[in-house]
């Protein structure tokens, strides 16, 4: 029993860094934001399912609230109200993805998502695509998923300055991802149990799968099959049974992936493939559930692998004014954004002798006035142009890099930089007295 307890605690509360949870947050909310914004537009033949606004105009004759909607006495809202909720919900998904106001945005993602997902389910039939999402949003809302890889974390680091805070590890960063895993595994397991309970071995041995494959081509589903391959398979004598057997086995076996890393390599892609196969052969799509399978990926290791690759080869150098509070905050943020380890940060106040030896062309006063960036070839960039050079090596900078090259932007950027730099003379961040700076 002691061993079991240890395993239990390790599974749920192993002390780890917040990186994986933060990255899972980005993956979950980012993919769902894109999914719910883009699919109605890109795939109008079935993507209208992901636009909840039309439900506001459906007659109340069809309203048959699902259990929790009924218990909470939630009525069908008007079109305008649903539209407003959907806009806020999508914004909450985006904010949750980038980790801005993370607690509020994740709670809003869950609460509004719960209502929006419950609406269609209360008009006739429950589809099961969003169940895992609802629980994932609920779990994330209670978690500390904004502690890393978030704008909130960047703001905290900016406030802390260049001094990197001690690395935090906690069980807080393990349980949310594990709980989502269990939700996913339990969902599949329950579907497998339902088949065994209602139909037993007959589900595999009878002509059941052939029937399902054929009937779906009579326009009975929420989406028509993507191919006509299902009809071909339905005519086979062995393949339908094999499909049925592999489906049930996969569903019942998915909980094993919770405990066995090796089995994850085939069970998780197997489950995702099965659902993609259902869309291909039968029509109903479970894309949200397929996307949720991405949360099995150890994203912290993936990123570590990528950044490890970046540690080799060329590096940029940033020389900044270490006596300036604003500069230190900026460097704190830049350091966090340097995922690939391509940038070396050098303090012109406290590390000048070493800097001078490596870069004899650098002028110290210039470094203390404008942040200087040196590329691997030794070319020097100051102020706005320094930021633009950095945008080439900071992954997040790639998003804005094209904009920084637009005509007029360098002119505006340089003036904004000079405006901010000149303000350093006032308030809490005066330029240092050069006579007091250590030589």
């Amino acid at each position: 029993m002691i061993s079991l307890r240890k395993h239990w605690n390790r599974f749920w509360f192993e002390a780890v860094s917040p990186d994986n949870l933060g990255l899972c947050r980005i993956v979950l909310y980012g993919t769902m934001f894109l999914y719910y914004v883009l699919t109605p537009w890109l795939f109008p033949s079935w993507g209208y399912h992901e636009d909840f606004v039309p439900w506001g105009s459906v007659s109340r004759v069809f309203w048959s609230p699902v259990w929790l909607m009924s218990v909470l006495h939630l009525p069908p809202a008007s079109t305008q109200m649903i539209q407003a909720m959907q806009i806020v919900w999508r914004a909450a998904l985006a904010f949750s993805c980038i980790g801005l106001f993370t607690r509020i945005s994740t709670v809003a993602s869950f609460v509004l998502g719960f209502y929006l997902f419950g609406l269609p389910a209360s008009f006739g039939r429950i589809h099961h695509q969003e169940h895992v999402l609802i629980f994932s949003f609920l779990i994330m809302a209670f978690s500390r998923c904004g502690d890393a890889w978030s704008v909130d974390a960047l703001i905290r680091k900016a406030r802390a300055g260049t001094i990197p805070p001690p690395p935090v590890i906690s069980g807080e960063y393990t349980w949310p991802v594990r709980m989502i895993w269990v939700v996913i595994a339990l969902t599949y397991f329950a579907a497998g149990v339902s088949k065994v309970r209602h139909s037993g071995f007959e589900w595999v041995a009878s002509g059941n799968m052939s029937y399902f494959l054929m009937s779906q081509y009579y326009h009975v589903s929420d989406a028509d099959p993507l191919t006509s391959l299902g009809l071909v398979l339905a005519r086979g004598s062995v393949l339908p049974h094999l499909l049925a057997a592999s489906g049930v086995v996969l569903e019942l076996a998915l909980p094993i992936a919770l405990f066995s890393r090796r089995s994850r390599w085939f069970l998780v892609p197997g489950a995702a493939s099965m659902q993609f196969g259902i869309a291909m052969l039968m029509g109903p799509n479970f894309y949200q559930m397929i996307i949720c399978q991405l949360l099995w990926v150890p994203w912290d290791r993936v990123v570590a692998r990528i950044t490890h690759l970046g540690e080799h080869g060329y590096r940029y150098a940033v020389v900044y004014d270490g006596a300036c509070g604003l500069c230190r905050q900026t460097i704190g943020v830049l350091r966090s954004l340097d995922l690939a380890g391509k940038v070396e940060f050098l303090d012109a106040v406290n590390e000048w002798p070493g800097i001078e030896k490596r870069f004899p062309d650098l002028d110290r006063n210039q470094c203390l006035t404008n942040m200087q960036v040196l590329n691997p070839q030794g070319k020097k960039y100051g102020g706005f142009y320094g930021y633009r050079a950095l945008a080439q090596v900071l992954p997040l900078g790639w998003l804005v890099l094209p904009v920084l090259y637009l005509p007029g932007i360098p002119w505006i950027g340089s003036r904004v930089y000079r405006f901010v730099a000149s303000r350093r003379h006032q308030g809490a961040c005066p330029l240092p007295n050069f006579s007091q700076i250590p030589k």
Partner: protein
Amino acid sequence: MTSPMPKDHPSHARLFWTAALVTVAVMWVVFAYSVAPEMIAKAYRGESLSIFNRLIAGQANHPLTEYLADWSRLANKVSFGLGVLVAGVLLALGLGSGEPGSAALESSSAIAISRPRLLLVYGLGAIIFGGALADLVRDTEHWPFSQYPMFSEIQQSKTYSMLRLYGVVERSPLIEVPLDSNLYLQPFDNSRLPPALQHALRENRLDEGVTDCLTRYETLRRAKRHDGPPLVAMRLYRLTWTLDPSASNVDRPDRKELLTEVPPRREGGD
């Protein structure tokens, strides 16, 4: 020289409990589906031990098959419960089998989380998994909890039956088209609309529901959200097909039973 495995080695305990559970499960299956029906039959005929014979006293009103069916239902429920229990215990016992790094287990076994937060996590888990397991065990659905019953029932019939709306393009001569594209009545689709119409039928408000569908169809058509023809009326049919391996009869159901039409056809029409 290798040291012998200690008696309390975890793998021994796992092996013991696994073997015990499998043995119990096998014994139950043999008893429930082989021994017990035979015992019931003997007791029904008064050929068993007197203590068992006395348990069955309704031979005059209930045939043997009824007793056997009752037992079968009970046995299935118990089997299912035991199956879930065994699966859960086996999973729990197998916790450590796949994860490497058992040496690190000792140091990482302490919970690295504050007590109030720990209670919160357990509370959250109890709600999520309690609800999910309750529905799973009881075979019920309480959205957002579910036993995920989709496609779980055996369907061996050669026929398929469903409600479908048809659009009446012209009354005389009658021209009607099946509204089988999901785009015609969005946000409804062919999966969600029939049960919604069934609901309206149960509420005796079917015409109101079909009228809403007609309005929706026309609104979407005018907004160019689909390319269906303009309609003068809408009909609801119950369709029955004999399934064809190539689905070639999808537009020619075997039976079409008209349930309602809106706006209602006037006398002497078409």
